[in-house]
C-alpha cells in the first residue's frame, strides 16, 4: 500500500512526505523552484491524476486522484504521525490558514458591518402600525375582586394558588424579539351582565406555562383548562355555554410572494409585505365558530381564520394589486400556514368535563416559531360574549439550543470561527480514525 508515495511512517520523518521520493522534500514549497524530476512516482501519479484527459472531464479524473492520494495517505497515517501533524510546515500551514481567515473575518465583521456591496432595498416597517408595546394588558378586570376562591377550588384541578394573577409580561430581550410585537388582543369589552351578581365568568390556565425548546424538541401539546364560574349547566352535555380558546404566537412581519410564468420559468413576481401577523394561531371551540356567534362579534375579538389580525405593511408592496388579489394573498397565508400546521382549527376541540370545567389540548408542531404565546379564552352563551380570560405561555430555547442560538446571533464572528474550527477538527479526526481502522 505504502509502496509508491512514501514509506510507512518511519521514526524521524517530519511531515514532508517527499523525503522518500524527492530530494527537495523538506524545503519550503516556494523554494524548490526547479522541482527536481521526481522519481518513479511522478509518471505514475500523473497517470493516476488523469494527465491524458482531453476535455474538462479530466478535471474530474484529477479530483478522483485526490481521493486516491488522500486514501493512500490516510493509510500511512499512524497515531504517532497524527501527533506530528502540527509540526513544521504543517504548523505554518495551519497558522497561515488561521491568520487569513481571521484577518478577513475581522475586517468583514468589524469595519464592513455597516457597508455592503449593494445598497439595501428600503425595508418596510417591521412594527405594527398601532401597537408597538410588548406588554399586554389583561382583560379580565372586574372579575378579580369578587373573591371567588371557593368556586375556583371546586372547578379546577388544583391549579397554582395564583392561577389568576397576571404573569409578568415576558421581557422582550429574552427572546430576541426586536422589531416584533407580541400579541395585542383587543381589550375585551365589558359585557354589562358581568356586573350582575352571579354572572358567569370564565377562568382558565395552561398546564405548562413554559415550554422549553431543547435539542430533542419535536413539538408539544399545550393543555388549556378552565372553569365557568356560576355555571348554570346541569351537565357537561347541556350545551348552554360555548368556549373558544385562541392560542396565538408572537406577531412577526412576513413577505408573501407569488410566482408567475415568465418565459417558461416560474419566478416570484408579485410580493406583498405584512407588518404583523401571528406566527402561530390555533383555535379550539366547543362547536363550529359560525354556530357560536355572529361574524361581527368574532371579528371584534380576532376569533377565526377570517378574523386573524393580519396587518399589511402600510404603503409598501401593495401597490398595483386589486383588492381581490390582496385577498388572495391573505388566503394564501392561511392556507400555507395551515399546511405547515401553524394555523390550526379544531371545531370540537374544547370539551366540558363537568358542569363548569372544560379542557382542550392544542398541538404545537416542531417548526413553531419561538417566542411568547397568549392563550385567550372566551365564554359565549347564545351568541353573546359573557366573559373572557387571557393567560400566557412562554416558549423558549433552553440548554444547548439557547446557547447555540445566542452564540450564532450575538457572537456571530466567533460562531463562524468556531464552525470552521469544528469542521477542521472533524476532517482531521476522520482522517486519523479511518487511517487506523482501514488497515
Amino acid at each position: 500500500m505504502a509502496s509508491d508515495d512514501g514509506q510507512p511512517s518511519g521514526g524521524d520523518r517530519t511531515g514532508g512526505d517527499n523525503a522518500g521520493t524527492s530530494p527537495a522534500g523538506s524545503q519550503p514549497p516556494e523554494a524548490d523552484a526547479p522541482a527536481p524530476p521526481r522519481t518513479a512516482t511522478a509518471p505514475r501519479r500523473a497517470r493516476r491524476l488523469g494527465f491524458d484527459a482531453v476535455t474538462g472531464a479530466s478535471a474530474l479524473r484529477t479530483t478522483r486522484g485526490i481521493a486516491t492520494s488522500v486514501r493512500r495517505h490516510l493509510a500511512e497515517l499512524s497515531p504517532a504521525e497524527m501527533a506530528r501533524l502540527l509540526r513544521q510546515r504543517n504548523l505554518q500551514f495551519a497558522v497561515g490558514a488561521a491568520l487569513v481567515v481571521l484577518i478577513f473575518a475581522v475586517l468583514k465583521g468589524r469595519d464592513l458591518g455597516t457597508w455592503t456591496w449593494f445598497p439595501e432595498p428600503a425595508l418596510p416597517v417591521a412594527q405594527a402600525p398601532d401597537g408597538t408595546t410588548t406588554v399586554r394588558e389583561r382583560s379580565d378586570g372586574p372579575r378579580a375582586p369578587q373573591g371567588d376562591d371557593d368556586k375556583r377550588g371546586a372547578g379546577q384541578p388544583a391549579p397554582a394558588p395564583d392561577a389568576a394573577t397576571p404573569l409578568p409580561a415576558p421581557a422582550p430581550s429574552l427572546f430576541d424579539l426586536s422589531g416584533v410585537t407580541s400579541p395585542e388582543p383587543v381589550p375585551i369589552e365589558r359585557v354589562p351582565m358581568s356586573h350582575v351578581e352571579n354572572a358567569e365568568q370564565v377562568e382558565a390556565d395552561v398546564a405548562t406555562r413554559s415550554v422549553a425548546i431543547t435539542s430533542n424538541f419535536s413539538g408539544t401539546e399545550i393543555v388549556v383548562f378552565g372553569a365557568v364560574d356560576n355555571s348554570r349547566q346541569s351537565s357537561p352535555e347541556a350545551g348552554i355555554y360555548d368556549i373558544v380558546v385562541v392560542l396565538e404566537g408572537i406577531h412577526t412581519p412576513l413577505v408573501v410572494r407569488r410566482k408567475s410564468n415568465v418565459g417558461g420559468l416560474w419566478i416570484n413576481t408579485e410580493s406583498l409585505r405584512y407588518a404583523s401577523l401571528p406566527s402561530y394561531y390555533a383555535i379550539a371551540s366547543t362547536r363550529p365558530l359560525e354556530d357560536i356567534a355572529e361574524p361581527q362579534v368574532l371579528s371584534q375579538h380576532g376569533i377565526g381564520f377570517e378574523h386573524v389580525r393580519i396587518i399589511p405593511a402600510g404603503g409598501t408592496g401593495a401597490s398595483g394589486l386589486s383588492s381581490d388579489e390582496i385577498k388572495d394573498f391573505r388566503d394564501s397565508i392561511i392556507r400555507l400556514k395551515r399546511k405547515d400546521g401553524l394555523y390550526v382549527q379544531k371545531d370540537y376541540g374544547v370539551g366540558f368535563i363537568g358542569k363548569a370545567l372544560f379542557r382542550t389540548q392544542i398541538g404545537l408542531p416542531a417548526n413553531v416559531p419561538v417566542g411568547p404565546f397568549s392563550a385567550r379564552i372566551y365564554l359565549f352563551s347564545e351568541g353573546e360574549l359573557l366573559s373572557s380570560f387571557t393567560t400566557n405561555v412562554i416558549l423558549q430555547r433552553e440548554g444547548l439550543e439557547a446557547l447555540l442560538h445566542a452564540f450564532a446571533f450575538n457572537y456571530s464572528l466567533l460562531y463562524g470561527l468556531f464552525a470552521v474550527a469544528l469542521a477542521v477538527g472533524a476532517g482531521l479526526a476522520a482522517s486519523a480514525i479511518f487511517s487506523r481502522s482501514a488497515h
Partner: protein
Amino acid sequence: MNIYLPIAEMSANILVFLGMGAAVGFLSGMFGVGGGFLMTPLLIFSGIPPAVAVGTEAAQIVASSVSGALAQYRRNNVDVKMGVVLLVGGIVGAVIGVDLVKLLRQLGQFELFVSLAYVTFLGIIGTLMMIESLNTMRKVAAGRPASMRRPGQHGWIHGLPLKMRFNRSKLYISAIPPLLIGAFVGMLGAIMGVGGGFIMVPAMIYLLRMPTNVVVGTSLFQILFVTAVTTVLHATQNQTVDIVLAMLLMIGGVIGAQFGAVAGEKLRGEQLRFLLAALVLLVCARIGWNLVVEPSDLYSLSHVVGGH
C-alpha cells in the same frame, strides 16, 4: 430519533441527515468530487431553508477538504504562491457572493438564482463530461489508446500585464487570470454552497495551463480557505450556518466517503466519469424541472430578511 436544529429552526431526523451525508459522502468518495453540488440541492429538497443549506454546506466542505488539502500539501503538490493568488481572488469573490445572497434573499429571488446557477453549471459540466467519457469509451472499445495531447501553449492570457513567476507550476503568467478565476469560483461557491473544484480544476488546466500534478492540491488548498472564509461570512452576515446540521452531515460524509472510495476503485476511469456525468445531469434536470413545472402552490411565505 429527532434533533432540533437551532438555526434552521426545525426538528430533523438524525438518521435521515446522517444517511444523506453518508450517501453523498459515498458518491464523493467514489468519484473524488467534493459533493457540495449534490448535498446543497438535497438539503433544499428536504426542507432546509436554502440560505441555511448553502451556509451550512460551506462548513461541511471545509471538513471534507481539510484532510485532502493537508495530504496534498505534505506531498508538495500545492503551488502555494498560485494558491494565494487564487485565494485573494476567491475571498473577494466570497465577500461579493455572501452579500449577493443577502440581497437576493431580500428580493425573494435567492432560490431562483441558485436554481439557475445549478442548472447552468451542472448542465455544461455534465454534458462535457458525458461527451468526453463516451468518446473515451468508444476509443477504448476500438482499441486505440486515449490521446495524450496537451493543448497549445500560447493564448491571449499571455499578453496581460502584472506577470508573476509561479515556480512550483513552472509558469510565468499574469496574476489577473488566476485572480479572476479565484473570484468567480469564490462567488459561485458562496451562492451555490459548493467548493467549486469542478470549475476551478478545468480552469487551472486549460486556462492557466498548470501542470496536472499540482492542480488538485492547489485547488483543494484554495477551496479549503475560501470555504472557511465563506463559512465565517455566512455566519456573520446571514446567520445561516447551522452547526448541528453541519456535524450530522460531516459524520455521515466521512463514513460514506470511505466506502465510496473502495467502490470507486472497482470501476474504470471513463465508466466513473460517465456515471458521474449522468448523476450531474440528473441533478441538473431535477432542479430545472422545478423551474419549468407549475408549482403546486404559487404562493410562498418568507421571513423578512434583515428587517430589524
